[in-house]
């Protein structure tokens, strides 16, 4: 059998076919993945050396940390109060709520979140969070395992993310101040 050299047109046509096949194959894979893997949208942010996240659906706004009025005699995790869309909200120290965490840079952002009971509050944060996804199955499995408000979830690239369950976080915390009755 004699092998004839391909003409330029033939080679281009062949490359185009291969390219189209690769694209089709990739799209098929994506579709299969989409069907199999429901995802959970999260807002991910750093806290000290670790990566934390909360459900994106609970996040209402990210604000610069300013105009916060300190509240003397309040509980230690309360940074102060601020106005947000006609309401008075508490600004809370997330590091303090999580049990005295170290931090890399002083928080400059406030995340306004739904506490899980319909009430809003603001949590301090070192940087504006990044929206990303986690496989729903992984989140559900972590939720079952976790006893406290923080779930440890590994991403596909084996990065550990501490996913905060806000409802659990606020249910387990007492709300009284230092001099609360």
């Amino acid at each position, binding site marked *: 059998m004699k092998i004839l050299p391909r003409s330029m047109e033939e080679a281009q046509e062949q490359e185009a076919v291969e390219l189209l096949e690769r694209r089709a194959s990739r799209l098929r894979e994506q579709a299969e993945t989409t069907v199999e893997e429901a995802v959970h949208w999260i807002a991910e942010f750093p806290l000290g050396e670790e990566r934390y996240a909360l459900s994106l659906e609970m996040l209402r706004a990210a604000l610069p940390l300013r105009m916060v009025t300190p509240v003397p005699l309040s509980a230690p995790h309360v940074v102060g109060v601020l106005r947000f869309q006609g309401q008075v909200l508490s600004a809370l120290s997330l590091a303090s709520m999580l049990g005295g965490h170290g*931090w890399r840079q002083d928080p400059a952002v406030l995340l306004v979140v739904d506490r899980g009971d319909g009430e809003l509050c603001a949590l301090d944060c070192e940087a504006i969070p990044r929206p990303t996804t986690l496989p729903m199955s992984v989140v559900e499995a972590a939720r079952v395992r976790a006893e406290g408000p923080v779930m440890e979830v590994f991403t596909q690239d084996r990065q550990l993310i501490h996913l905060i369950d806000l409802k659990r976080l606020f249910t387990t915390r007492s*709300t009284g101040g230092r001099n609360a009755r």
Partner: protein
Amino acid sequence: MPVDPMLQGLVTGFAVEAQEVIQKVTMDLLELEREGLDAGALARLYVRLGRHLHTLKGSASSLGLQDLGDIAHKLEDALAPLKASTRKMPRSVVDVLLHGLDLFMLRAQAHADGRGDALPDPAAALAQLVAEGPPPETVGALLAGAATASAPVEPSATPEENALVEAASALNPQDAVPESADTGWRVSVRQVTSLMREVERLREVRLRVEERGRELDRVVTVLAKQGLLAETAEARTLLSGTSRSLRTDGEETSDIVDALEDGLKAITTRPVRTILDPLQRMVRDLSRQLGKEARLSVVGSELSLDRRLLEKLQGALVHLLRNAVDHGLEMPSQREKAGKHHEGALTLRIEQQGNLLFLECSDDGAGIDVIRVRKVAESRGVVTSDEAERLNENQVRDLIFRPGFSTRSDVTDTSGRGVGLDAVRASVEGLQGRIEVNSTPGQGTRFVMTLPVDLGSSPVLVVRALEQLVGLPMLAVEATQLARADSLRIGKRKAHLEYQGQLLPVVDLGARLGLRALAPPVEGQPLLIVQSGGKRVALGVDAVVGDRDLVIRPLPSEVRDVPAWQGAATLSRGELLLICRPDWLVTESGQAAVAAQRRALVVDDSLTARALHRAMLEAGGFSVHLAASGARALDRLATDTYDVVICDLDMEEMDGTQLIARLREKKETSSLPVILVSAHDSAAARERGMAAGADGYLSKRECAAGRLLAEVLDVMSRRGGRA
């Protein structure tokens, strides 16, 4: 039978009007049966009563409601023999008239609901009404002993006047009737709440507009400084014009916000008297039923409050008053033996301070028998005998709010089921309020409810303690003065101010809020005389900023239970001002106990970093004060002593190394342990900090709870402090 819709509308309107008139008649009747009114007042009441009854009769007849006309006529008949007497009305006559009014109102409501045809023949009820009442000829006997009235009697309504009232009511019943449900709108609570929130957002927009105006003014100033005066003249003129327009727009928005808020207030509130007036009748009926005598006085009924709040409070007030009559007040003979007036005095006092409503229900009865309460609580299983032993008197008194508690051994219509005060507390707490009880044996009992209210602005005095601005409800501030040595009495633990012949304890606001250590007032320091619940203190502040009319909002749940604060208000630049509770200020604090704690000063320009350090150190048993800059830390160290300073390395104006240098210069602070903290984790930064004289260095990353505390204790022990 088909009813003319127009006539039905008039009947509905009439029912609303009748209810209002009947409420007035009821109040007049209760007044008429009391002792101590002079003849003139009695005469006026009789005349007014006659007119009201006549109005009811006329309006009912004009609408063809003959049964109601007949009832009103009978009531007029019962009143007729008394009108000229100008003596207090006999109880039996008051009973008949009140019963007649109940009958009238029941039937009026049935007509309004379209159930008029199904009503029984009024003849029987009328016959009963007449039978219950004393015959006219015996009314004179009931008034036995009464001398002929000496005071001039006002003439009763003339036939012309009566005809006029009747004609006016018949022609234009809707004029006298408040807007009924048919002529208004039905709106949900959520819609109104959402509208209120939008108004608050508009207020914020107004504040932002003002801020933009100020920014424009700053731009104009900057442009003028650039040395390009001629080139920027046109731009500056334009910007100044825009700034002025913004200011005008801001003022107009402000007016709109105020008008909207007033409108909302009118829609959502009603006078407190609308729930208090009917309670008079309830107290009267109940005390008669129990063979007691009681008089209810109301103070503050002219206040207008949120309708939802009033509806929820009504049940609680009914419980408290029934409780006071049943359990609190003694029988008239017992009262007289105890040297009291045979008629028990009940008082309802309503007062609004800022966004807090104080509702006090008191009686001058026997007071709460603490021994009995303890015994009953034990026997009913509310507490165990061990628990009961450990309770102090206040805690025992609080047992009356527990479910299932009742000192009645038998169940009556009034009490004995152990349901009542626990329901009152539940409803008050449901409104995010609280209830307290005070009682003195033989003198009476006082329940005080404190509830947050949302609507309306109130005058607030803004003061400063260190850097913290604090608002005080103006109603609680009696006077302000500057501290003078000759009026102060300074003891070892407390200072007192001589004020109007009294010695008032001096409370330092900064120390009370935990911002600094307790110190006696200094010459020239502003002192405010603050009163609440009959107690007064002289409040020492660092400055009086001024008075403002502010809308006070409730605090979020995380800080709602901090007893120092009752709410927060927005200041003109948009920042929140915390409003202090006067009742908290006048109560004794436990500051003396705090003095023995180890003290730390945290210096950091980051609010959240300060909060975190504070949390960690307080968890380790430290009393923590905060400073937002090096300069403020030096101020604090000039007056207070600390066991350790935790200081941020990188701060504007004066960084951590500069602060250490200043501390080491002074003899008092030269050996004060200082730990530097920094976001920088490099060896160079650490070296720089230690070289400056720091005793320890931690990166903020390392500042996890245990690590910071361990470092603090280590440094203190090395320096020979109270580690």
